[in-house]
Structures are given as C-alpha cells and as structure tokens.
C-alpha cells in the first residue's frame, strides 16, 4: 500500500466512522438482532429471520451508500486529484475507507448480541457475517461504479434500485415461474446456472445449507443443496461469490481511472 493510499484511507475512515447515518444503521441492526435473540430462541431461528433482513437490506443500503459516497464527494475528489498522486491511489484509499466501516457494521452489530446472548454456533455466525460483508462490497462497488458512470445522482440511485429489485425480488419470481412453467422439462441445471448470476441467492443458499433446513430453502436453494454438498459445488459457489465481489470493484476502478472529472 502506497503512502498516498494510507493517507486517504486514514481520513476516509475518520469521515465514515463519524457518520451519524452509519451509527444509526449499526444500532438498528444491533437492537433488531438482540430483540430476535431475546424473543426468537435458538440461533437457527434467529439466523433465518436475520438472513431475510440481511439479504434485503444490506445490498440496498450498500448500493445507496456507494452512490451517495461518490456523488457527494465529487468536488472533493477533484481537489484530491489535483494533488500529486496517482488516480488508482485515490480510488483505493477512498474505496477501502468508505466501505470498510459499512462492511464491518453488520458482523459487529450481529456479533455483539450473539456473543452476549447465545455465544455458540460460531460457524453459523461466520457464514452470515461473511455473506453480509460480501454483499456490502458488491453493493458498494456497484453503487460507486454507477455514480462514476452518471454524474446525475438521481439516475445512479434509480439504477441502484433497479439492480436491487432485480436481484432481491424479481429474480426469485423469475426462477419460481420457470420452475412452474417448465416443470415437465429438465431445467434443474439451467436453474443452478441461474443461481450463479445472483450474489444474494448465493449468500442465502450458503447460509441456509449450514442450517440443514431444506424445508426452509426456496426453490432454487433446494436444487443447490443437492449440488452444493459436493466439493465442486462448494468451490463453484466460493468462486462465483469472489467474482461477484471483484466485478463491481474492477468496474468502479476502471471508471475512476478513466473518468473526466
């Protein structure tokens, strides 16, 4: 890490960690998790409830955070680009400084009540925490890329909502529809392939497989459970999640380095 990246990272972290909005987001998640443990009982029950919240909320918040983080800082980025440093240095300092606090917010907010109230089944916690961290990176990366592509904030926010709606809502409906309409055809492999096109679904399945509760899995999840028991299934899932994490970051970096400010 170059010294310019370290400097930018340091100040971006200070800025992000003082954000009232981040504090609010973390506190809400912490209270919600504590209440679920308080009233919900076992870790497995709580994880299922939390998972739905995490899968819907985390990508959306991360997308908006990425868009607003860049669009609100545009003039400041211009000032920094007029300093003697490379563009990639400013990008990495800004990206890590912006996303690190948000990425850690969910694991910490869930982790504190987990530690205090049940302090067991840490493998399940690790999967949920890791999944939420990946979804944060994916969302923030796409949000930043959208804000770099379009200076008009409304357009970037609109596209973020469209992507979130497609991955979090529309996708499930589409897969379910395919399963119902084409139930007489051997569409299992096609549906498995579709799953790799959605990071939210991958995190959902990876987490639910730890619970061994096939009945609670969605249609696509049930299919993957058969497949993901194998080593190749685990490897493919991990690779797909890694690619999903890298893709938006690469897009944002590429756009940042080439952009006319």
């Amino acid at each position, binding site marked *: 890490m170059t010294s310019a990246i370290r*400097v930018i990272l340091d100040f971006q972290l200070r800025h992000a960690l003082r954000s009232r909005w981040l504090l609010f987001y973390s506190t809400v998640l912490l209270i919600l998790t504590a209440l679920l443990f308080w009233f919900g009982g076992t870790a497995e029950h709580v994880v299922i409830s939390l998972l739905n919240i995490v899968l819907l909320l985390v990508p959306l918040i991360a997308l908006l955070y990425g868009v607003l983080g860049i669009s609100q*800082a545009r003039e400041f980025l211009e000032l920094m680009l007029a300093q*003697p440093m490379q563009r990639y240095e400013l990008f990495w300092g800004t990206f890590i400084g912006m996303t690190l606090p948000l990425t850690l917010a969910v694991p910490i907010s869930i982790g504190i009540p987990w530690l205090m109230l049940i302090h067991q089944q840490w493998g399940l916690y690790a999967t949920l925490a890791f999944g939420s961290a990946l979804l944060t990176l994916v969302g923030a990366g796409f949000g930043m890329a959208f804000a770099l592509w379009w200076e008009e904030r409304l357009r970037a926010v609109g596209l973020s909502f469209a992507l979130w709606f497609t991955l979090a809502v529309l996708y499930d409906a589409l897969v379910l529809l395919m399963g119902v309409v084409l139930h007489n055809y051997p569409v299992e492999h096609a549906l498995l392939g579709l799953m790799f096109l959605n990071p939210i679904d991958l995190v959902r399945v990876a987490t639910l497989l730890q619970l061994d509760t096939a009945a609670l899995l969605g249609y696509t999840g049930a299919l993957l459970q058969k497949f993901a028991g194998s080593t190749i299934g685990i490897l493919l899932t991990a690779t797909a999640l890694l690619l999903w994490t890298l893709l938006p970051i690469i897009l944002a970096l590429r756009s940042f380095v080439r952009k006319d400010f």
Partner: protein
Amino acid sequence: MIEFRNLTKRFGKNTVLRGISLALSPGSSVAILGPNASGKTTLLKCLLGLTRPDEGTILVNGVPITDSPLYRHRIGYMPQHPHFPENLQVAEVIELVKRVRAIAAPIEAPYIERFRLETELKKPIRALSGGTRQKLSAVLAFMVEADIFVLDEPTAGLDPLALRVLKDEIQQRRARGCTILMTTHTLGDVPELCDEVLFLLEGKIAFRETVAELFASTNSRHFDEAILLRLQQR
C-alpha cells in the same frame, strides 16, 4: 513554462475545446474569461489532469503532464465549488492535503491567521458557511510551495475582508514570479490581479492581450466595457 498544444476536448457530441494552442511563460498572470460553457473550467481541469483531452498535449516545463502526477507539487488549486468531507474538521482537511504532499512543517499557520480561520479549526466542515469553505480552499491553495496557481472563480462567496486578503496573496505570488491562471465572472477584479486576458468563445481563443493593450486598443477606461468593445472589433 506551460504549453497547451492543439488541445481539443469533446463531451459526447459537444466540443468544448477546439484546438487550443497557448504558451504561458513563468510569471504570467492570466485571466481566462468567456461566457458560460466557453471552456474555461475545462481548460484548467485539463492542466490539472482532471480531464483528459481527446487531442493535443499539455507540457509543464517541457514535460507532458501525462508522464507523472508529480508536476502537481508545483500547483496550488482553488476549485470553483469547494467541497470537503462533512465529518472532518477544518484542521484535518488541512492536515490531509499536507500529508498527501508530504509536508511536515506548520506552513498553514500564517494563512489560517490571515483568513481568520483560527476559531474554525476544530469545527466539522458541515458547520461551515459557504464563505468559510472558500477561505479554507484558499488556505489549501496558497499554503503549498507552488509556483503555478490555478484559481477557478476564487473570489466567489468571500466577504470583503477575506477578498482583500485573497487579492493580496495573489499579488504577492505575482511579485514572486509565480504563474497565475484564473477564471472569474467579476471583471472588475481582473486589472488588479492579472496582466493578461485570454478570452474563450465556443472553445476557441477569441483574443489574448495584455490588460494594457486591451485598454489602449478600445480607448476605454472600464474593463467590462473594454472587453465588450474588443469583442465587437473581432
């Protein structure tokens, strides 16, 4: 020496700069004037490396600026719309710029005093008025050991006292032989702060003259009138 060679910049179908060629010798103080969307800010952003020209090159002391970002050590920049991270304090923003430039000495102290920012240092940026942000922007630009100053509407939003301080800073830099490139819509400031006028119109240089030549050629005593008359002479 700053050289713009055949600089062309397009944004989509809109050509903002059309083959601008220009050489500025050290110690020049140039007001870049022109109507809105004439290419003033784009020209400055090209020099800073914020915007990449589609054609042409820019050289600072004979070296293309695309070779390395280190030439920006020599540039102090005041952007048109100063904006800083809202949760950082004024002192932290100053520290950030110093650390990026690897400056350890307390070079900012006299500028903080001159622009009367002592009481604002611990305040978060979100608590500052537009004028105070502009003062901070001036401190950031002038505290660095630069010999080129790129000032995009530097007087906008400043109170009369801060405006006087800013003008004095610019005058001092001119006296030291620094190069000043400045855009402004306040034409009355130009004769006091600049020796030359570069007038851009639709991305081209309409004229480039010294302030003295401009007054002489138009036989006018008022700068805004001189500009209008000079444009009519074209």
